[in-house]
Every structure is written in structure tokens, then in C-alpha cells.
């Protein structure tokens, strides 16, 4: 939570004493060409190295090169910095740095009362105001009266600082992101050294640009020290993180590492087949850059080819993985049925986005739960998992591979646009030198058959190339004993049950459901899945800190559900299910356990705010039995 211990107006005199903040939410915003994401990434790094907890989220425009100065071309980066564990980027910014009027326009509705707004007055020309569709200059008409406004000619100061480095006037002006970053680091007491080192590495091939950006950054930092302006100064202390080595990861980065680690622990090659789609493409880009580390990546001609190639790779004895988002998932549907019928391992990552159809590609939603669990023709069960946080994507990607290869089943791993791009600190795991869950293929000469199921109902995985065990697999119905094509009525009923039981038996191989916070029997349980983890965790913690009897349940295993879930849910007075859809998990829980789960729905393309959930929980507690 962005609770300031002292109001922002506490700054003032040039001789500064730093005000301690428990947390702060900073948003940088400008044109997509202004280097917002680069500056944001460095702010995150400097924050991480200072030991505070953080969560970040980039908000890119959907257009690739939107006309400059327009509201739809605005690119933003938000960071939540805290001296305690935080799980969201914060409901409302405490600080906005807006490089142009359009950035101010877009972000105004989100700012908290009294927020600090840093503007570049030189960017507020009549043409820029018109492009941002401001009828009047917002600095003059009272629009900003609820905020504390600092007008600093950022671009001019950056240009002046960078000029001496031998760069053009245009290049000098483009260092304004680093100038602003320097000022923010000074305001929030972050060590500038890591950013300086990064600039040196990033521009190693062009010493002029390195010198220009360094000069601008240093000038921004020094501006804080020397300015006559009443600049506020703060510090945010270290957060109590468990000991270890950390880095920041986005959900996509954690997924890529988790897939590599999962394949390694299974003793398998990883073959990743994908087709470009927002927001899943980022995973393809990352893995394509990791081909020296044991992954083959394949950009297919379409979504169907991507999943089919992954199925082919799994058939051949690698672990095939494909990734997509809503509409692409729909295209993969028939092939998922083939993987179920052929009983092959497969991992499908669905980075969900707002639907239906093409919907809002860059906006987040979690509305593919029904599609993942049930969205195929026939009785076609498979396993569905969901990652809770960016760092959790690592563990769940590993888990998806473990379950797929040991239960011979496709596994859908649900993430979403928020998880894919948000970043948070990640404690590096200790990578074991030996595979932790190796796959055992039949050895040459071993007497087995592809349809000799074990006690869990799992068939052996016999890749082509295995001597003496050549066989045929098909998406047609198979004889239970021989695997030959069969349309026998009793056999079809038996095979349908065999496929169903095999997937339900995965529940014996996953952890029992526990409470993330609170105890069984609480007056109210908040049950979530996927990226709602962050706002739910923070909201439940806040209500519990005030003595509210509320528990948090977070599902990472959506199908099959944990064995004890029904009993656990029955212990609570009320069950509240916040979802970024119109109530899919709530419907699932009602159908499976006959519990009175109540849906809290949000479908705006944006994550829940912590405040919204706190209000809903308090309302629920007020009415709870």
C-alpha cells in the first residue's frame, strides 16, 4: 500500500531531512519514443539493489509508432517501492513524471489526491495541448489544483548537460529520460552507481551516447542537490526479504527459466513452438535468445502448426511446449483434443488477454478459465494450472512440465497480460545438478506396450526410435488393450473413463490446498486464482491487520482441484471470489462443491485495486454470519 507516513508537502528547505516512507508509487509517462521503459527498468534496478521490495508494470501503447504527443501514443511505467512485502504496483501513483501534456491527460484520473506531478513546461506548447485534446492549459485552469506540481524544463536541462559529449542536439534532447531518472533517484535516496554502470555497458559501442546519457543522468541527480525549488526528499527502507541472492523477473522471464529448468529436471530436450500473438510473444523472444541453454524454438506458420509441432516433438520424446493468448488458444483447440486422445505430454501457456475475439490485446483479463478446462469437443480432460505472481511463473512452469511428462497429459498453464509483463524480486533457486523428476523411457528389449497403463492409469511414453516397440497412435478411439482403432460401444465408455480418471488422479500428485493467510473456519474466505493474487494478498493483509477474520485461498491447481478444497471451503462463513471475468471460478466451485461462492467481477482490462477488494471484504465481513 502506498501509505505515506508524512504528507508530500513535507519537503521544502534546501537543507533537507529525508522523510521516511513506508511505500511510494511512482509512474513515469511520456511518448513511446521517450525511453520511458528504459528509465523505468533502471529505477527498478536501483530500487532492488537498495533492498526495498518492489513490483513494476509497463503500460505500452497498442500502436507501434503512434503519432507523437497523442494520448494513444503514451507509454508508462509504474513502480511500487516499499519497506515491506508488496504484491501489486499500487492502486494510485504518489508521483507522476509526465513528459508531455498527453501523458498528463492519460494519467490524471489515476493520481491520488496530493500527488506530486513533475512536468516539463517547455512541452506545453499550444500544439501539444491541442494534440492531447486539452481545451485549456491544465496548469492554469485549476485541473491540477489537487496536486503538487513541479515544473522543471527537463529536456532543456538534459540537452544542456549532454551537449558537450559530441552528440547532436536531437540526441542530446533524447537523454531527458536519464535526466529525470537521476532526479528521481536523488529524491528517493537510491544509489546512482548501478545506473551509471548500466549506461556504460549499454552504450559501450558508442562512447558519445554513453557520455551524453551519463551527463544527463548526473545532471538530474545534481539538480536535486542544488536546485532552489522546494524539492521533497524521501527514503524508503529495506524490506524484510528472506535471505538469498535476488534479481528482478517479469512473468515471461520466470516462465522461460521455469520451462528450461522443468525440461532439465525431466531429463528432456525442450522444444518451444509458437506463433506471434500479444501478449504471449514475449516468451518466444526470450526463449529464442536462450538456444545455447537447451531449447529449440520454432516460429510456426500459425497457431495450429505451433501446437501440432509441439505435439510432434513430445511424440518424439522431447517436451513440446506452445504458448498463446485467447484467440490463438481457440485455434489450438482441436490439436489439444488430439494430445488428450493420443495421451501425450504437452505444455500450453495461455497468457490471457481481454476478449472476446480479438478483444483488447494489450489489456489483462482472466476469462479463459472455462476455455482451458472445458473448451474442447468431446470428453477431453486435461490439467489446468495458473501462476499467481511473476516470480511464481518459474515454479508453475516447472510444475506444468513435471505433471505433463509423469501423467502423459497436456497441461494448460494460465498466466495473463499483467503477469507476463509485471516484474518483482525473485530469489534465485539452487539448481540441482541431477534431474529431480527424470522421465524413464522403455529400454531396448523391454516388454511393454503403449497401452499398458500403470496403477495411476498412465501409459508408457515410447518415442519412435525405441527398438522393438514400433506402434501406431491416433486421434480415433482406440481399443483399451491393443490401441487398435475401435468403435466398440463398451470400449469407448471404458476409454472415456480411463482418460477422465487419469487426469483426476493428478490430484494425488499435487499439494493439498492451504490458506495463504488466515485459518480454516474464518468468517470470510477470499478465493482467487492467477494474477489476482497480488491485490487479494495485500487487501486481506490490510483487513487482517485491523483484526478482520478473513482468510486467503489461492488456487494454483485449477483442474483437477486439490483433494481437500471442498472440505476447506465448507469451513468458511462466506466465500468471496474476485475474478477478472464474470464469475468463472465461482461457477466452477459452486458446480464442484455446492458451496455458496459469491463472485466479485471486474472486466475493465485492468487488475483489481487493493482498495476495491478491501471494501468488498469489509462489506462481506459486515454481512457475514
Amino acid at each position, binding site marked *: 500500500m502506498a501509505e505515506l507516513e508524512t504528507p508530500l508537502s513535507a519537503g521544502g528547505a534546501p537543507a533537507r531531512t529525508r522523510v521516511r516512507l513506508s511505500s511510494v508509487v511512482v509512474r513515469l509517462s511520456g511518448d513511446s519514443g521517450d525511453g520511458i521503459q528504459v528509465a523505468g527498468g533502471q529505477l527498478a534496478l536501483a530500487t532492488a539493489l537498495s533492498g526495498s521490495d518492489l513490483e513494476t508494470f509497463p503500460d505500452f501503447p497498442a500502436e507501434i509508432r503512434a503519432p507523437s504527443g497523442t494520448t494513444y501514443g503514451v507509454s508508462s511505467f509504474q513502480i511500487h517501492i516499499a519497506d515491506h512485502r508488496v504484491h501489486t504496483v499500487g492502486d494510485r501513483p504518489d508521483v507522476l513524471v509526465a513528459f508531455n501534456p498527453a501523458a498528463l491527460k492519460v494519467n490524471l484520473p489515476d493520481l491520488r489526491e496530493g500527488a506530486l506531478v513533475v512536468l516539463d513546461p517547455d512541452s506545453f506548447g499550444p500544439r501539444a495541448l491541442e494534440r492531447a485534446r486539452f481545451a485549456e492549459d491544465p496548469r492554469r485552469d485549476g485541473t491540477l489544483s489537487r496536486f503538487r506540481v513541479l515544473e522543471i524544463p527537463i529536456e532543456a536541462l538534459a540537452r544542456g548537460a549532454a551537449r558537450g559529449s559530441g552528440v547532436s542536439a536531437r540526441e542530446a534532447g533524447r537523454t531527458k529520460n536519464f535526466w529525470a531518472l537521476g532526479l528521481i533517484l536523488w529524491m528517493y535516496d537510491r544509489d546512482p552507481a548501478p545506473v551509471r554502470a548500466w549506461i556504460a555497458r549499454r552504450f559501450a559501442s558508442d562512447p558519445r551516447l554513453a557520455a551524453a546519457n551519463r551527463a544527463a543522468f548526473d545532471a538530474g541527480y545534481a539538480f536535486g542537490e542544488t536546485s532552489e525549488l522546494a524539492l521533497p526528499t524521501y527514503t524508503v527502507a529495506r524490506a524484510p526479504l528472506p535471505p538469498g541472492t535476488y534479481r528482478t*523477473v517479469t512473468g515471461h522471464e520466470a516462465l522461460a527459466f521455469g520451462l528450461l529448468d522443468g525440461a532439465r529436471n525431466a531429463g528432456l530436450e525442450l522444444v518451444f513452438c509458437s506463433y506471434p500473438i500479444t501478449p504471449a510473444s514475449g516468451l518466444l523472444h526470450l526463449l529464442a535468445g536462450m538456444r545455447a541453454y537447451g531449447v529449440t524454438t520454432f516460429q510456426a506458420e500459425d497457431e495450429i502448426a505451433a501446437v501440432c509441432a*509441439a505435439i510432434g516433438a513430445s511424440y518424439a520424446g522431447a517436451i513440446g511446449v506452445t504458448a498463446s493468448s485467447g484467440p490463438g488458444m481457440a485455434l489450438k483447440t482441436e490439436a489439444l483434443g488430439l494430445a488428450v486422445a493420443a495421451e501425450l505430454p504437452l505444455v500450453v501457456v495461455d497468457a490471457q488477454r481481454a476478449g472476446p475475439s480479438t478483444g483488447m490485446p494489450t489489456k489483462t483479463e482472466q476469462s479463459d478459465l472455462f476455455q482451458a478446462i472445458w473448451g474442447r469437443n468431446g470428453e477431453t480432460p486435461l490439467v489446468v494450472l495458473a501462476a499467481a505472481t511473476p516470480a511464481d511463473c518459474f515454479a508453475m512452469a516447472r510444475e506444468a512440465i513435471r505433471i505433463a511428462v509423469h501423467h502423459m497429459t497436456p497441461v494448460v498453464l494460465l498466466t495473463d497480460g499483467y503477469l507476463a509483463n509485471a516484474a518483482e524480486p525473485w530469489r534465485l533457486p539452487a539448481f540441482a545438478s541431477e534431474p529431480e523428476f527424470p522421465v524413464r523411457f522403455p529400454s531396448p528389449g523391454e516388454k511393454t506396450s503403449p497401452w499398458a497403463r500403470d496403477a495411476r492409469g498412465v501409459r508408457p511414453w515410447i518415442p519412435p526410435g525405441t527398438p522393438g516397440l514400433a506402434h501406431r497412435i491416433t486421434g480415433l478411439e482406440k481399443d483399451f488393450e491393443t490401441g487398435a482403432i475401435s468403435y466398440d460401444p463398451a470400449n469407448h465408455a471404458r476409454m472415456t473413463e480411463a482418460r477422465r480418471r487419469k487426469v483426476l488422479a493428478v490430484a494425488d500428485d499435487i499439494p493439498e490446498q492451504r490458506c495463504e493467510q488466515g485459518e480454516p473456519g474464518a468468517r470470510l474466505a477470499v478465493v482467487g486464482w492467477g494474477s489476482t493474487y497480488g491485490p487479494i494478498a495485500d487487501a486481506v493483509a490490510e483487513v487482517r491487520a485491523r483484526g478482520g477474520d478473513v482468510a486467503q485461498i489461492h488456487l494454483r491447481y485449477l483442474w483437477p482441484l486439490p483433494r481437500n478444497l471442498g472440505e476447506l471451503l465448507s469451513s468458511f462463513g462466506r466465500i468471496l471470489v474476485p475474478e477478472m471475468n464474470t464469475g468463472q471460478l465461482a461457477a466452477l466451485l459452486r458446480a464442484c462443491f455446492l458451496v455458496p461462492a459469491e463472485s466479485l467481477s471486474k472486466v475493465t482490462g485492468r487488475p483489481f485495486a487493493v482498495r476495491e477488494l478491501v471494501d468488498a471484504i469489509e462489506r462481506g465481513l459486515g454481512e457475514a454470519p
Partner: protein
Amino acid sequence: MNDSARMFEPADYRSDQEVRWCPGCGDYAVLRAVEKALAELRADPDRTVFVSGIGCAARFPHYLATYGFHGIHGRAPAIATGIKLAKPELDVWVVGGDGDMLAIGTNHLIHALRRDVDLVIMILNNEVYGLTKGQASPTTPLGTRTPSTPLGVVERPLSACALALAAGARFVARALDVQQKLLPELLVRARNHRGAALVEILQNCVIYADGAWSHLSDKTRAPETRIVVRHGEPLLFANGRKGLALARDRAGLAIVEVGPEGPDAAGVLRHDERDRTLAALLADLAPPMPVALGVLYADPAPQSFERALRAQEEQARAREGARDLDALVRRAPTWEVAA
């Protein structure tokens, strides 16, 4: 993959499954030709995979004693590509009909050919949908009446070989199902070709399009209606009395009479299977010109797709060193939190 300790007979490649094509179906002849080719190649059944989609032809894998994957409609080239990505050393064959490969799965066919994945791709073209009972397919001739086109087909048919060449295929061949010497020979060559090899097999459906190729298979008419091309040999047909030469007045092939002075004097072209332009002209020949059979085009690239990918990975490993995951995750800045 060869296993010299064993004798290989065509029957060794037959599975225990009862073959369920209609009596008289051309697929039987194709199955026989495939068995002959596998025996000649001394193919190891344990390292050979047949992949198919849906349709009559797609039943193929069930009838062979190799590994087999009978998948979903049109997607066999994509599944086969995935197999080669994981295990480049396997011999992978794709079998499909004209509906499978030239309608629902055309996109995958085009891209498997364009990428040059090391696959043999057999298209059994019978100009009709068989398994779904006789609808017009993308190769059905204009005017044909079928249950889905009772007033006659108004779409122009697609040429599999012309499409393959346009997609960048580096091996394109064509034969009739009944050509039991030529077809196995083409299949052996296709298998030995490095990269994607397309073999179009003109196959007779006795139920829904019987006689579709009889003008080519009928012994009395065949000399005038078809030409079997061989690398380095003159393009002759009609028992050597006619040949194909470059037309004088347009960019195309023309029929010339071959006199006593021989084919060269008549301007008859010699087949050069590395000549893509000639292959395109041959692929397009349709009655009243003779239909071209044999290897129309064969010009292997130095490396197939999946081998090129592997080579890239080797290079990346050599460049970045044999680093482990621990090194990978530490490519970003890290920090320590003390206990």
C-alpha cells in the same frame, strides 16, 4: 537407417492391421509401392515414422509396421515438423490426400516445403473427398458434378506440383499409383533427397472418381497423354515420335515431331532436374499436352531446416560457452539479502 544384418522384404513393413480400403482402391497400389521402397531403402521400422492427417489416404500409418501417428485433418506436416525438431535422425514420411494436403492443410504443406524440413510428403491425389463421400476437392476438374456441386464445379483446380514449386520445394515428383516401377523409384529418391520432398501420386478412387486418371494409365492412350521425364534425357513421348521443345512464339513448351535426324535436331529439350523454370513448365502441363511424370525438380540445399537449426544451436553454445541455468539467470544484475 540401414541394418545390414537383416533381410528386408516388402512384407516386413506390413502391420498386423486388416487393410480397410475399398476393394480396387488405388491406395493398395501405393501401399505396395511404399513397402517396396522401404525394402529397397532397408529402412529400419523402429526409426521410421509415418505421419498422416485425416482421410482415406491418412489410414496409411495403421497398415505399416513402422512407428505411426494418425493425427488430425491437414496437420500432418506440422506434426512431422515437430518430430524432426526433436529427433532429426528419424526418417519421417507424411501421407495425405488432396483434401488433407491441398485444402484444410495447405498452409502447413507450403511451409514445410518452404522451410525444407527433411520429410517425404506423399499427396495421394484422387480429385475427390473419399471418406466424407464424394464431395469436390481442390483438384476436382471444372464442371464435375458431385454431391456438393450438383450443378458442376466452377472453381479451377489446383496443381500440387506447381504449388510445391511456388512454395520453394527442392524436390518435386509425380507418378501414377499403378506405375509400380516408377513410383517406388521416386519414393526411394525422395527419401534420399536431403530436405522436403514432395511426391504427387495420381491415385484412383474406384467409388467416387473412378477413371480420373485412366487417360494416363490406359496402355493404348498413355504414350500420347503422358511423358516420363529423366534427368539428362530428351523430353520424348509417343514412343519417341514426339518431344517437348521451347515454343517459338511464347514462354512455354510446345510439342514437336521427332524426325529421323533425332530429338536434338527437332529442338527437343533435355530434362535438367535442377532447372526450376523447366520444372515449373513441366508441372503445368495438362491435356491436350502430355502430363509430366517422374522427378520434375531436384536441387537439394546444403542443409535441411532442422539440421540448420541444430547447427545454429551448436554455434550459440560454442559462442556463449557451455553455461548452465545458474549462469543464465545471473545475466541480469543480482543482489544479496543477508540473513
